[in-house]
């Protein structure tokens, strides 16, 4: 694949090297403003990719760049200084790569790849050779000294390790997010313990309306007055866990940690919701699935497979909804920014910046909405599973 991406730091050298030369003189003040805005916005959505040589003859591929940013990565790349020069400096938080292969567990730092993800850098550990191909670790087959690619860019002479348990940037950000959640909620809980009259103060007065919202607007109406208490810890936890990770996806310096836009994350949460729903299903719930009451027998037989499919479709819809919404938001912003580089003119920048700012504002709302939807639908499924028979 003859593709290279760029990042904010390639932008300045590119400029010097003449992409914008014809208009540079005329609009130098305007340019400065636009570029600062552009820089901030681009940085905002977290361009983390990098290029080895930073030449200006590379073709820009928006699809490659966007996919690279919405997917997971082994290192937590913050910025690149002096791109394309002798003293190029990558500011990266190296994260551990943990892979389990036929030869057992192998661990090494992601910095061993030296920011390469095209399979050039070969890391020898534990008698095996590892390469990073589009942020996926591959083990080179015996005897291979270089990765060979097929037409679609998949390695032909390397395979994935049995288990890849690396602390990727999504895992890292997930841990940062739970640290923040602990900080917020344990502090809030301590506030209540300290006060004699249970009056919220400090962070508790910020947290309490949200907790009460989950209880009164999500759990109680969906599950019912009598049974909602059992599900409260789960509902509160997913609500805040999803919300904070949605927000982290929008924070500039965190470099596009797209955890809640990752299908593995939404899959896990949806699976937990499915398991809880299935295990809390009462007689009435199973009767509605396998032998729908109140309809004629042929209808009962007809409805059974539909209901069984529905059982699985519900969590799958949860999984896809969150993943697609969050990923789509990132993709739109990145695509808008890509316009500048596709058209190779700074004139499109105001449009890109204005639109991506608009989308970013919408995304801020979406962070809360998606967390709310995931939680309310989970609560709805629990409510359906525990509903008593009507008389």
């Amino acid at each position: 694949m003859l593709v290279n991406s760029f990042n904010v730091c390639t932008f300045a050298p590119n400029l010097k090297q003449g992409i914008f030369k014809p208009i540079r003189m005329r609009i130098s003040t305007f340019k400065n403003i636009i570029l600062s805005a552009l820089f901030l916005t681009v940085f905002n959505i977290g361009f983390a990719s990098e290029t080895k040589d930073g030449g200006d003859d590379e073709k820009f591929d928006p699809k490659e760049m966007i996919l690279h940013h919405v997917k997971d990565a082994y290192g937590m790349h913050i910025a690149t200084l002096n791109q394309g020069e002798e003293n190029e400096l990558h500011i990266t938080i190296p994260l551990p790569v943990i892979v389990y292969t036929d030869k057992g567990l192998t661990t090494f730092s992601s910095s061993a790849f030296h920011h390469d993800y095209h399979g050039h850098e070969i890391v020898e550990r534990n008698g095996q050779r590892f390469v990073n191909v589009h942020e996926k670790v591959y083990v080179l087959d015996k005897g291979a000294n270089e990765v060979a690619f097929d037409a679609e860019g998949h390695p032909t002479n390397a395979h994935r390790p049995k288990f890849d348990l690396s602390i990727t940037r999504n895992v890292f950000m997930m841990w940062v997010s739970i640290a923040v959640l602990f900080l917020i909620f344990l502090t809030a809980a301590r506030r209540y313990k300290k006060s004699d009259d249970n009056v919220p103060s400090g962070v508790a007065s910020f947290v309490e309306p949200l907790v009460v919202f989950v209880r009164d607007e999500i759990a109680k109406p969906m599950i019912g007055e009598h049974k909602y208490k059992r599900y409260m810890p789960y509902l509160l936890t997913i609500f805040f866990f999803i919300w904070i990770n949605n927000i982290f996806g929008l924070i500039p310096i965190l470099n596009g940690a797209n955890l809640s836009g990752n299908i593995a994350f939404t899959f896990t949460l949806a699976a937990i919701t499915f398991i809880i729903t299935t295990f809390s299903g009462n007689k009435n719930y199973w009767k509605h699935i396998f032998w729908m009451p109140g309809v004629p027998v042929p209808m009962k037989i007809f409805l059974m497979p539909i209901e069984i499919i529905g059982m699985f479709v519900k969590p799958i819809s949860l999984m896809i909804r969150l993943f697609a919404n969050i990923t789509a938001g990132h993709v739109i912003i990145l695509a808008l920014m890509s316009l500048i580089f596709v058209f190779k003119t700074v004139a499109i920048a105001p449009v890109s910046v204005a639109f991506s700012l608009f989308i970013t504002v919408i995304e801020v709302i979406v962070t809360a909405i998606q967390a709310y939807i995931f939680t309310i639908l989970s609560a709805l499924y629990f409510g359906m599973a525990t509903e008593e028979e009507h008389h």
Partner: protein
Amino acid sequence: MDLITPEFGLVFWTLITFLVLLFILRKFAWKPILGAVSDREEGIKDALASAEKARKEMENLQADNERILQEARAEREAMLKDAREIREQTIAKAETEAQEKASKIIEKAQAAIESEKKVAMAELKSHVAGLSVDIAEKVVRDELSNKDKQLKLVEDMLGEATLN
């Protein structure tokens, strides 16, 4: 396709992280927070209920006061009425008693007058009788010189006396 294939590693770490998060938050955050919130709500509910109760008690108390006042007023009326009646009765009784006593006194006085009158009459009679005897003696002494005259005089005198 890569984008929509869940990575095992991330699923694994998400599951572990989420369970740890759920466990710790449930124990150290949701329990105290929800407990505090529901405690406070209970407190507010109780406070409202007791305020309502106090209000009702107050109302009852006021009604009682009103009733007691009414009763007191009625009692006072009754007492005043009784007093008036007693006064009237006393006056009436005193009047009748006074009248009785007066009439008794009058009766006694009349009786005394009667008896005095009788005594006076008797005295008068005896005086008159003595006077009559004196007169008669003088007359007799005068008349007794003539026998016929004597007789005639006695007869006349007696006849007159009886007539009186």
